[in-house]
């Protein structure tokens, strides 16, 4: 069972092992990480960007950058949150560029909060129902909530990146919570 006969199965390896190998130059280990977290970080990028446009570019660039900076990662076990931070930072860069080009259509023309339908799609789980609500939230509301609750950004960081006062960020997150909780309570 040498490596020539059959490459070893890296899908069973922990993040630490995969990161260690990738830092040493093992492309297959990096590929295993890409496969492990690729879908997750794509969904995350989509949640921050609010559209499927640019998602592929953001995630590809993030992963190429991740390979480059992997040797600097202090805690190899924390690679997932490290990747997510790279992806959200890249997504925020894209949003900044969109703003500079005056392209702000992405968070307008949305349904007012109170009229957001409680998930109309078939709800197989509470998570799916909440995801449906999340998809229907106005872009800035969803973006702020996701960065705060999933990305772990502070109000100040979010405000700085989105060019919004912290108080606005706080208000948007409060409204997102309200919408999500309404769905959750309806679910009970």
């Amino acid at each position: 069972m040498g490596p020539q006969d059959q490459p070893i199965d890296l899908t069973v390896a922990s993040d630490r092992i995969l990161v260690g190998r990738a830092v040493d130059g093992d492309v297959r280990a990096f590929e295993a990480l890409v496969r492990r977290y690729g879908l997750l970080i794509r969904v995350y990028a989509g949640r921050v960007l609010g559209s499927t446009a640019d998602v592929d570019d953001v995630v590809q660039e993030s992963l190429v950058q991740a390979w480059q900076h992997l040797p600097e990662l202090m805690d190899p076990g924390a690679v997932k949150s490290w990747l997510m931070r790279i992806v959200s930072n890249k997504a925020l860069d894209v949003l900044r560029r969109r703003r500079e080009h005056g392209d702000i259509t992405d968070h307008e023309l949305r349904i007012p909060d109170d009229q957001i339908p409680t998930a109309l799609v078939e709800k197989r789980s509470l998570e799916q129902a909440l995801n449906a609500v999340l998809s229907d939230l106005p872009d800035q509301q969803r973006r702020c909530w996701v960065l705060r609750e999933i990305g772990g950004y502070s109000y100040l960081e979010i405000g700085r990146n989105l060019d919004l006062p912290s108080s606005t960020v706080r208000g948007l997150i409060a409204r997102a919570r309200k919408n999500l909780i309404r769905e959750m309570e309806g679910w009970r």
Partner: protein
Amino acid sequence: MNDSQNDSEPATDADRTRRDPAELDGHTLDELSDYLDAGRAPADASIDSSPSCQIALTSLERLYRLSDTLLEAQASTEPDLDESWVAGILHNISRDSRAGRTIPVTHPDPAAELAITEGTVRGLVRAAGDMVEGLLVGRCRLDGDVTTPGAPITISVDASIGWGTSIPDAADRLREAIYGILIRHTDLTIAGVDITVDDVHNPAAKGSSR
């Protein structure tokens, strides 16, 4: 209902109090989430004694717990990664960035200059590890002055052990495999091979995570 449609507008007081106070005994959801963030301290009797606030706090806590799994749940409903997309990423990464130090290789002809990279040696160590059943090799370090021919080098390897595999036995086989491959392919002076088993994996999970 007025300005709440515009995301760029700061939330006004009217907006913030629009729905909550009647339901939450004068508190807002925003206040309650701050209260949670602060670990419910200092204790606020008007919150703690309000049934509606307690219900809202429970919902908030539940939402916090769920937020981590929301993305995972969404990702699990997405179609599989596109193979050409994965290939595109791997194509764009720079393999050269992991070469490390240059290790001179002695050659009978003194005029011939021959060298291998540290990255190549690490690759050999990995290859040796991959031949050892029940064990996965992680990070590998070459300690010592590899640029000086003949200088003693210690190889340090992190490894993960498969469930049910004897650690001393696997470590012996790994050490042997590493010595063997390095003696065959390099003229490094190996002073020792340090193996740190710092992880456990389940080989039975093979393929199931795909």
